[in-house]
């Protein structure tokens, strides 16, 4: 074959339909030239579940809270939190101050467990399974705490329009403090593993870089945007609920390293420090939590009547572990369902950054670079690889891709 022909040729590898990092359904079409990724196409929608349609046609608003909780198993507070705030605006429902604090405590516990989960997955992606076991073991502490406080590990059904369904009692406080102390105790250990280990650095520094400019243009949100030096955090910028009483500062990687690179390593820094920040927020909330009721309308039939009679619209934003979450709600008087409900989860916008992040990467770096965005497909959904020379398409499955990534780490360690 002539040289000019091979130079032109790229090869498209499909990865998916179960995606390469977090075992969730999305397809990435990677156009590669040798080992290098030239272009990526993201094919979402593999598991579109028509949740918005159900909220607009089948459920009454209270049932929709529990539907919103099931948009994503990890963000099972953020989505209902966002929905209840939008409906509270639309129907003009007041929220007791104590409930606002409990909501924030629930949201921050969720952030700790989500970031710990991500850290474990990231370690696994580069073949560091001991760290994966360690972080997931540490994550159990907060899962147990969530179960203790809210009655369930995952879907907690804690929120209601105009408040929360469970109070935090004085007897519960020592147990909560015990878990927070546990995380404070292991933080230094985790920091050393993730930020000082040479192998982790070799696999994450200058990998999957997203510049500040691109992050702004592609509307990237959450830790991925902050790692690129965009100090954007809804809890800081437009604080909602009890965050409005706290003075939260968006975490960017320059706090630790003095510079912003926008790579995978920076994303680790941001998430690690956010775990610490979440612990501080929970402690502050417990200290400042006012006494009082936790619900403004505890009687369900009255609440439903009030919602059916209400007319208006509301838009609420919540800083979920992966970034900004937004719900728009429109209510019409006399209608039993939400007239319009639009949900936008953070991964929806973060996926647009994938082609930029993967450009120029080696195939073996694809899993960790992609996973570093902490994409969540239930919120939003596979990778195909094409040879420029032959035009052949082959499917790279998760095991194969993971094996390539682990091999790279082993080579670096030798």
């Amino acid at each position: 074959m002539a040289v000019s022909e091979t130079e032109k040729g790229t090869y498209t590898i499909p990865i998916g339909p179960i995606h390469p990092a977090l075992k969730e359904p999305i397809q990435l079409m990677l156009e590669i030239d040798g080992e290098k990724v030239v272009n990526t196409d993201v094919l979402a929608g593999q598991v579109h579940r028509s949740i918005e349609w159900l909220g607009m046609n089948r459920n009454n608003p209270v049932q929709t809270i529990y539907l919103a909780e099931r948009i994503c198993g990890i963000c099972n507070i953020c989505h209902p939190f966002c929905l209840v705030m939008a409906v509270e605006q639309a129907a003009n429902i007041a929220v007791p101050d104590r409930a606002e604090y409990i909501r924030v405590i629930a949201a921050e516990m969720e952030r700790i467990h989500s970031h710990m989960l991500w850290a474990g997955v990231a370690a696994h992606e580069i073949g560091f399974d001991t760290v994966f076991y360690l972080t997931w073991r540490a994550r159990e502490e907060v899962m147990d705490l969530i179960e203790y406080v809210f009655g369930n590990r995952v879907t907690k059904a804690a929120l209601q329009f105009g408040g929360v369904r469970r109070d935090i009692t004085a007897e519960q406080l020592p147990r909560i403090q015990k878990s927070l102390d546990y995380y404070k105790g292991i933080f230094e250990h985790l920091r050393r593993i993730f930020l000082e280990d040479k192998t982790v650095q070799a696999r994450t520094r200058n990998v999957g870089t997203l510049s500040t400019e691109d992050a702004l243009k592609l509307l990237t949100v959450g830790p991925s945007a902050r790692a690129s030096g965009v100090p954007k955090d809804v809890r800081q910028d437009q604080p909602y609920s009890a965050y409005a009483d706290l003075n939260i500062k968006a975490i960017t990687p320059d706090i630790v390293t003095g510079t912003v690179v926008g790579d995978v390593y920076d994303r680790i820094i941001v998430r690690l420090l956010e775990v610490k920040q979440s612990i501080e927020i929970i402690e502050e909330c417990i200290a400042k939590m006012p006494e009082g009721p936790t619900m403004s309308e505890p009687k369900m039939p009255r609440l439903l009547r009030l919602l059916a009679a209400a007319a208006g619209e509301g838009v609420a934003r919540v800083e979920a572990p992966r970034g900004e979450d937004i719900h728009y709600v429109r209510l019409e008087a006399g209608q039993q369902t939400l007239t319009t409900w639009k949900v936008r989860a953070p991964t929806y916008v973060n996926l647009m950054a994938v082609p930029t992040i993967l450009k120029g990467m080696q195939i073996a770096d694809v899993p960790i670079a992609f996973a570093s965005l902490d994409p969540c497909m239930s919120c939003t959904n596979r990778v195909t690889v094409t040879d420029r020379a032959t035009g052949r398409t082959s499917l790279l499955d998760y095991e194969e891709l993971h094996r390539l990534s682990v091999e790279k780490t082993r080579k670096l360690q030798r």
Partner: protein
Amino acid sequence: MERLSPQAIIDSFRKELGKGFVSGTVYEREVAVKKNKFRSLWVEVKKSAFRRAVEHICRLQEHPHLAVISSGDLGTEVELIYHFTIYYGHHLEELSLGLRVKLPKTDLTIPTITDLIPGAIFTERETQEMMGVKVVDIPDGRRLFISEDVPEGVYPWRKDETGPEKLLRVLPGRKPKQWDQKG
């Protein structure tokens, strides 16, 4: 860049768009113990002034954040709301800005804004497939979420005859629900 107050922003839209400006309101809500204000702006513009309105937002804030486009079926017209946020990155300074534009069902087209905000592509693709609003000059007009086996001309967010009800499977022995009744 100098940051304007919410009312001044509405006035700047009125001045900039002239007859293309329909209405503008400021929503405020006090939150939690310190009663800090949660503020959002709602601006409605005519379709003819829509591009100028987005260009104006780009002047208020370099790289405005477009969260999403929400769309609602209002019977004879479709309402699109572009949810922007401006003045981010500073404590308590950020404002939500909902830019509303109503399109008659006889002419469901809207110009693309991906030349101004490249990240608008996903939400424009979604609006196109879910609501049947044609985005003029969209650089990538493929479907985003809906799978290829769903026929053309079915729009899940619509509440008229183009809605997805005809695709619903009715289990044997059950009657199809009357979807045309409200609620």
